[in-house]
């Protein structure tokens, strides 16, 4: 019964979304406040209904109600409790429910925190959000209904895919969705602004916090996914340029560009049309990612069983939203007034270069991801585009960006002084290069060219420090004055510095791992010892063990450094009994920022086992850097929040000065 109520709540949510798609838009046209108010109440109601519906599905999973087909297919009574919760979205239907839940969450957040928005804009934004909700609720109800029953109910479920039985599943999808569904708010703002035919710096100020929040979550989500793949799949890789990874990476690239162009628009009212277009494109890439992952055109860990009708449905959603938004853009964009002028060498100029590089790099990833699909559709030829393609194109195109990043914050708005920035940065570049040389010398081995890569990463980190250093005037003014200036800097200045430094740390980690990592594949028998990355590994032997829903053969390794035991680890091959599916559980040991990764292969005839050992120097920098970036985003966001309210207070104090607040028509 409760299942049917959950199902019914979802249908009610659809009805609410339908009302919400129409009434506020008419209200905004007629300036009818009552009709516009429907947007706020309706968004909250829809969120409540979807939360309830999602809660029911979660309940079915937690109590293992196998009369629900979705639970039967993706759960098992022996699955540990946490995976019963996270298993809700470990399947196609459930993950679409999570998608919808987060979409409606963002609508509700806009409804609650958007009190400062002009009424018409808010009504339109929430209506556009509702259009997206209608599409996805219909999609769930018509093609991917998680509430379907089985009669008679099976006694036991078919188990959750063992690869997904991990805390990673509890964290990665929600973060990722908070990121790329979060960009829907930017999209809705863009479409609403185009509907109203008006856009100004205030618009950018309202969009920025949402972009920043979505970007922060997406950064964390991608990093978490990468780390999960690294430790769970047992291949020791952290990024595979898999189409599904690209699907989340492209919105990140476009979102990063959006973050920077919205800044130009907010501060200088320039790049308006471009920013609106980017807002549309970023969410379009999110939608396309959803299509790629959920339609079954690709196969990967992420693509659960799927049938063609779903693919066609999502493709339709994709075409309607992207096509519709871009047509609206084509009609309305020429009417938007051009913004402020600026010299090529200026903060704006640097941000334009940032946007150019990010979007072009995003374009190459898009090409590499879609080309095989297109070619197969058109000619039937099957090809694979793998890491060599992406490393070459994306790597080369992004390289100049890394060098340019530290210059941006040092240039003034409108007209910058490149010579001045160069003078400030050449010392930084020199220090970075020297540090890279020392780093390279200490690591011994690897191509000399990698020094450049290391230097680039360090240049970013030191450049971010230098930015704050010069702003505070350290060394030029007295210590206490410098301190006062430093603490007086806006939070967003610290956010920028942190995000840029985080990027540098990630670059450093990527270059260090690709250059200095060592891999050993050897056959070991119990009692044997081997050397890896300056440590010696002693293989103590194998022993069987059982978990709640699997059996495993695990090997124990003792790690010694200079004869002293420093650590030990288990590395296992598991067999999940319900699905008869084997997995590899790598043994991972952390030493500082580096890791030793031990993965087991097949047993050999003479009683040994193939062991694969990697030494991964500074690998934690890759995700650590992403974490620092996300912290930068949060710090900056804490500044933004104060600013969101700012225009209203100003408008109250001096009413006529703030024309942006008046309703548009």
């Amino acid at each position, binding site marked *: 019964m409760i299942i049917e109520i959950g199902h019914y709540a979802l249908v009610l949510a659809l009805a609410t979304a339908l009302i919400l798609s129409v009434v506020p838009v008419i209200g905004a046209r007629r300036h009818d406040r009552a009709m516009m108010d429907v947007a706020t109440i309706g968004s909250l109601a829809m969120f409540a209904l979807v939360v309830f519906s999602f809660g029911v599905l979660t309940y079915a999973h937690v109590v293992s109600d196998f009369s629900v087909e979705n639970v039967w297919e993706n759960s098992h009574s022996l699955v540990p409790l946490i995976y019963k919760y996270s298993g809700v979205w470990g399947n196609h239907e459930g993950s679409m429910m999570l998608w919808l839940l987060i979409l409606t969450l963002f609508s509700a957040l806009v409804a609650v925190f958007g009190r400062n928005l002009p009424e018409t804009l808010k009504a339109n934004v929430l209506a556009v959000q509702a259009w997206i909700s209608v599409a996805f609720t219909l999609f769930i109800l018509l093609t991917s209904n998680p509430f379907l029953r089985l009669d008679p109910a099976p006694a036991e479920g078919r188990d959750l895919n063992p690869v997904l039985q991990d805390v990673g599943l509890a964290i990665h999808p929600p973060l990722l969705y908070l990121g790329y569904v979060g960009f829907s708010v930017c999209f809705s703002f863009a479409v609403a602004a185009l509907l109203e035919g008006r856009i100004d710096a205030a618009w950018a100020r309202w969009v920025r916090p949402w972009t920043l929040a979505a970007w922060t979550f997406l950064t964390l989500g991608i990093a978490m996914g990468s780390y999960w793949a690294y430790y769970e799949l047992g291949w020791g890789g952290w990024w595979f340029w898999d189409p599904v990874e690209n699907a989340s990476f492209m919105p990140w690239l476009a979102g990063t560009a959006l973050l920077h162009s919205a800044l130009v628009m907010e501060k200088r009212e320039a790049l308006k049309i471009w920013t609106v277009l980017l807002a549309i494109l970023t969410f379009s890439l999110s939608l396309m990612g959803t299509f790629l992952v959920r339609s079954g055109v690709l196969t990967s860990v992420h693509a659960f069983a799927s049938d063609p009708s779903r693919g066609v449905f999502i493709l339709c959603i994709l075409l309607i939203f992207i096509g519709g938004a871009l047509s609206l853009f084509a009609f309305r964009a020429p009417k938007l007034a051009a913004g402020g002028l600026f010299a090529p060498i200026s903060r704006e100029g640097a941000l334009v270069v940032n946007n*150019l590089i990010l979007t072009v790099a995003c374009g190459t990833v898009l090409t590499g991801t879609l080309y095989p699909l297109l070619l197969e559709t058109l000619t039937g030829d099957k090809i694979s585009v793998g890491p060599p*393609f992406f490393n070459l194109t994306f790597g080369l195109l992004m390289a100049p960006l890394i060098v340019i990043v530290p210059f941006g914050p040092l240039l003034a708005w409108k007209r910058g002084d490149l010579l001045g920035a160069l003078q400030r940065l050449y010392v930084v570049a020199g220090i970075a290069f020297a540090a890279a040389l020392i780093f390279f010398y200490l690591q011994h081995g690897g191509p000399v060219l990698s020094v450049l890569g290391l230097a680039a990463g360090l240049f970013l980190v030191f450049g971010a420090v230098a930015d704050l250093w010069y702003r505070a005037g350290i060394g030029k003014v007295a210590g206490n004055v410098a301190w006062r200036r430093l603490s007086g800097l806006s939070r967003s200045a610290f956010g920028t510095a942190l995000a840029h430094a985080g990027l540098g740390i990630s670059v450093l980690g990527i270059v260090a791992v690709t250059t200095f990592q060592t891999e050993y594949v050897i056959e070991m028998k119990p009692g044997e010892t081997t050397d890896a990355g300056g440590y010696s590994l002693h293989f103590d032997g194998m022993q069987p063990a059982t978990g709640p829903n699997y059996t495993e053969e695990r090997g124990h390794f003792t790690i010694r450094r200079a004869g002293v035991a420093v650590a030990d680890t288990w590395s296992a091959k598991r067999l999940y009994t319900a699905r008869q599916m084997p997995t590899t559980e790598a043994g991972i040991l952390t030493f500082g920022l580096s890791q030793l990764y031990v993965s087991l292969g097949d047993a050999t005839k003479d009683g040994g086992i193939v062991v694969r050992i990697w030494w991964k120097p500074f690998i934690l920098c890759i995700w650590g850097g992403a974490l620092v970036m996300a912290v930068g985003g949060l710090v900056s966001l804490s500044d933004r929040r104060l600013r969101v309210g700012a225009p209203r207070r100003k408008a109250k104090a001096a009413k006529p000065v703030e024309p942006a607040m008046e309703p548009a028509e």
Partner: protein
Amino acid sequence: MTRKQKRLAVIAGGMGFIAAAVLLVMFAFSQSVAYFYMPADLAKTPVAPETRIRLGGLVGEGSVVRGAGSTVEFSVTDGSANAVKVKYTGILPDLFREGQGVVTEGMFAPGTNVFTADTVLAKHDETYMPKDVADRLKQQGLWKEGQGQEAKATQ
């Protein structure tokens, strides 16, 4: 420079960057794209040695031979009489099994007809099979429902 010239220079710079990116993409495609073959295709149109390709099919029953260390040899079949012998050094994926679908990537060593793979992809849970392989096996009528694939193998 006048404002107009400056603007032209900026636009030219942007276009130049995009053109460079397009050239780079085309170059990378010509270098690093691997075509997909099954054994029957190779019998029809042999591939020059040291050309990177993907070879897919089923792992031949009883064909897996473990050599010294982590070297493994197995054959990839597709129901035709043209099995291809594959040599791989490394750890095979968890889901690699005889009779199951597999996609390998690598090249033929010069002067031999042994395919040296550097990547092996295999999956076989009830809803998954390398898509390229599944499509072709279906075309050839070799697709078997069941065999660890219960009712809902809709791919």
